[in-house]
């Protein structure tokens, strides 16, 4: 049965709230607890959201993969996929591994991804992740506007400009110094070479590039990789049976660098133009004799067979951003099944093909995110318990103080439930006031968290969040309304729970003893 507050309960609740310092302190305590939880959840939630979005940025929504050896006729598959209304775009990719040799003599193992720049940009956020490009506004934390991209790249804006570098990055090519003809180039993760220093403002400063000579002496080159840098890329081709063949190395210019915000990707991923990587991995289109043939035998040559180019992966993006990726995966499965039927014997069977959503592809990372979320929720629960005990202790002492009032109320006809409701209403009111207060504090702090952090850094030398260390440009500064609603409701509920035991104690207090209480 719904209990409706009586007028005396609302009056007493209001008076107890406004005439005592203790409930105000309790509200403040609840407010600070609520604010702490909401700030933590907002920052952590922003952190997790950014991680998730970064994980999706280079994958798209669904990937269709046959790792290592790859599969042919991929353009046919892409055409079929793009003919579906629910599919926005699809792009061929080769996922492989290899190594790059840096000017200072280091060799770094890298994940290599062969891509077709324009179509890859339609499926993923590749275009946005390209780092060296013109920007109109400084990054939020770059108060002094020190980002080199804000200025003309060289004095007098001599080409290539930032815009040229952006175009080079999108097409994964760079003009040859002598001929001016575009040649296949690489786009590196911003942290691969470690020749970029991340500054507190969140931008990168290219460093002088050390080069170790034959005599072991190190000299520093005034080079900027996207303009005049070249690295040796080594790949390890596999034959059609998946067996390793001799490695293939190629000196390849750098077109640009990218930043997803996800440290592992930015530290170890290298993008290469698809046709160049296909060539290096022997996955490009080629011809061969249908059977063994010795040209010296004098026999007529057997017919030639064309081996179509292969890729390991086709990435797919939903036609609408908010689309259900699981439904998209099912659609991709159906399209692939039809495709496999038409190329039976040439491509892997539909049952064997790896078709997964971006969430499945990032299952490890998603699991980590979920663990972190659990941790946040645990902290949230723990803090809520603190608030509960805070209210219990305050109410316990207040009820002791108000024992005679309880006796008087019983003497003038108040029932046990009525007495309990006075304290429950009181607890709820403290919770509501505290929660609203906490919400306001949290909103104020989270909205200005970067400014507050900057102030702390400048005034106290305290940089808790250092963008040169963390992968994010700035601290997440948005409050999720749903999270806020949960936290505020939790604040009220905590106080209600906290008031419950003292309320029951008050309700069952012997009125005669209460009146005699001193």
């Amino acid at each position, binding site marked *: 049965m719904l209990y409706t*507050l009586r*007028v005396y309960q609302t009056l007493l609740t209001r008076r107890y709230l406004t005439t*005592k310092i203790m409930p105000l302190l309790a509200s403040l305590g609840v407010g600070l607890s609520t604010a702490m939880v909401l700030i933590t959840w907002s920052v952590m939630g922003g952190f997790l959201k950014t991680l998730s979005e970064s994980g999706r940025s280079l994958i798209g929504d669904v990937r269709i993969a046959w790792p290592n050896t790859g599969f042919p006729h991929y353009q046919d598959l892409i055409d079929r996929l793009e003919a579906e209304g629910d599919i926005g775009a699809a792009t061929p990719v080769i996922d492989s591994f290899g190594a790059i040799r840096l000017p200072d003599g280091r060799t770094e193992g890298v994940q290599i991804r062969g891509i077709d720049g324009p179509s890859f940009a339609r499926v993923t956020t590749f275009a946005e992740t390209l780092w060296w490009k013109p920007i109109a506004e400084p990054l939020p934390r770059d108060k002094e506007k020190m980002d080199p991209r804000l200025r003309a790249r060289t004095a007098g804006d001599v080409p290539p400009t930032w815009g040229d570098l952006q175009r080079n990055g999108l097409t994964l090519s760079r003009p040859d110094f002598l001929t001016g003809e575009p040649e296949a180039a690489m786009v590196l993760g911003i942290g691969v070479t470690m020749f970029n220093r991340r500054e507190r403002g969140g931008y990168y400063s290219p460093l002088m590039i050390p080069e170790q000579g034959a005599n072991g002496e190190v000299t520093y080159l005034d080079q900027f990789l996207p303009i005049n840098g070249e690295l040796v890329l080594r790949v390890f081709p596999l034959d059609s049976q998946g067996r390793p063949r001799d490695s293939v190395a190629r000196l390849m210019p750098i077109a640009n660098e990218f930043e997803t915000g996800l440290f592992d990707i930015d530290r170890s991923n290298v993008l290469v133009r698809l046709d160049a990587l296909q060539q290096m991995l022997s996955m490009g289109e080629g011809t061969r004799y249908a059977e063994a043939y010795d040209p010296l035998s004098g026999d007529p040559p057997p017919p030639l067979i064309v081996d179509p180019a292969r890729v390991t992966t086709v990435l797919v993006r939903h036609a609408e951003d908010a689309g259900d990726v699981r439904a998209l995966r099912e659609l991709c499965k159906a399209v692939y099944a039809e495709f496999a039927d038409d190329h039976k014997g040439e491509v892997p069977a539909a049952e064997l093909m790896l078709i997964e959503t971006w969430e499945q592809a990032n299952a490890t990372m998603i699991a980590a995110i979920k663990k972190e979320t659990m941790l946040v929720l645990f902290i949230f629960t723990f803090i809520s318990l603190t608030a509960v005990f805070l209210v219990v202790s305050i109410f316990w002492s207040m009820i002791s103080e108000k024992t005679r009032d309880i006796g008087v*109320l*019983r*003497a003038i*006809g108040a*029932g046990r439930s009525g007495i309990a409701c006075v304290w429950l209403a009181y607890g709820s009111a403290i919770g509501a006031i505290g929660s609203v207060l906490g919400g306001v504090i949290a909103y104020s702090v989270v909205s200005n968290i970067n400014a507050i952090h900057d102030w702390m850094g400048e005034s106290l030398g305290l940089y808790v969040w250092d963008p040169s260390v963390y992968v994010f440009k700035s601290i997440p500064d948005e409050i999720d309304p749903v999270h806020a609603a949960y936290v505020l409701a939790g604040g009220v509920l905590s106080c209600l729970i906290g008031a419950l035991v003292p309320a029951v104690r008050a309700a069952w207090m012997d009125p005669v003893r209460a009146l005699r209480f001193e």
Partner: protein
Amino acid sequence: MTNADRSNSIGSDSTPVLRAVDIRKTYRMGKVKVPVLKGVSLDVTSGEWLTILGASGSGKSTLLHLLGGLDKPDRREGGCIEFRGTSLASMPERDRNAFRSGSVGFVFQFYHLLPELSVVENVLLASRVKAGPISSVPSAARDRARSLLDRFGLGHRLKHKPSQLSGGERQRVAIARALVNEPVVLLADEPTGNLDQKTGSEIIGVLEELRASMGQTLVMVTHDASIAARADRVVQLVDGKVAERAGQSAPNGSGPAPTEPKADPQQALGSV
């Protein structure tokens, strides 16, 4: 009820509003049982002023609490308290609350005003408790509260807090609170016990005036024989039992109560 118990019963022939029959009340102090009331019977008739006189610890406040439904007699053979023929023990909790809210009014020695509320809010608290959910206090109750406070000389202090009042004023506020719901019986527990003689006399004067003008039934507990002497009827509790019967004017609920001390209280009480 035994004959011996009957002998402890004091009352008038008219129908009582409150009747206590063989009341026993025992408190437990750790492992020790302390019997406070050992079979008290009495009747309170409409319009009378009954004073329960006794030394400290004689059980008079306990008896008052039992009469007001604030406490219950012993579960086993604890006797029975009736209000207009209905046993309080048989009343559901809600009805007992309603009884305390509407049929009796308590006045305590230490006033027991709520310090957060103003004078008028303290008085109206009883009406607010009586009022149903959501519904506001009836305007009649507001008028009555103001009228009572005017009558007690507190009409100009409605918004004052109890801490701004003297002891006598606080007790008058407490009496107004007890009367605001127009109770059948006013139960006063040592109403002058915390006041100086002059102020205490003023409070008794207030109660006497109420009796005179409203015919208010009054049960008062006191250890002050001089106050007891002003009552219609006095019962003395000694060691948990009614020791003596001492009557003054026969109460009929219609006649004015005596406004002057009737006699030497010792004389009125016989050998008490």
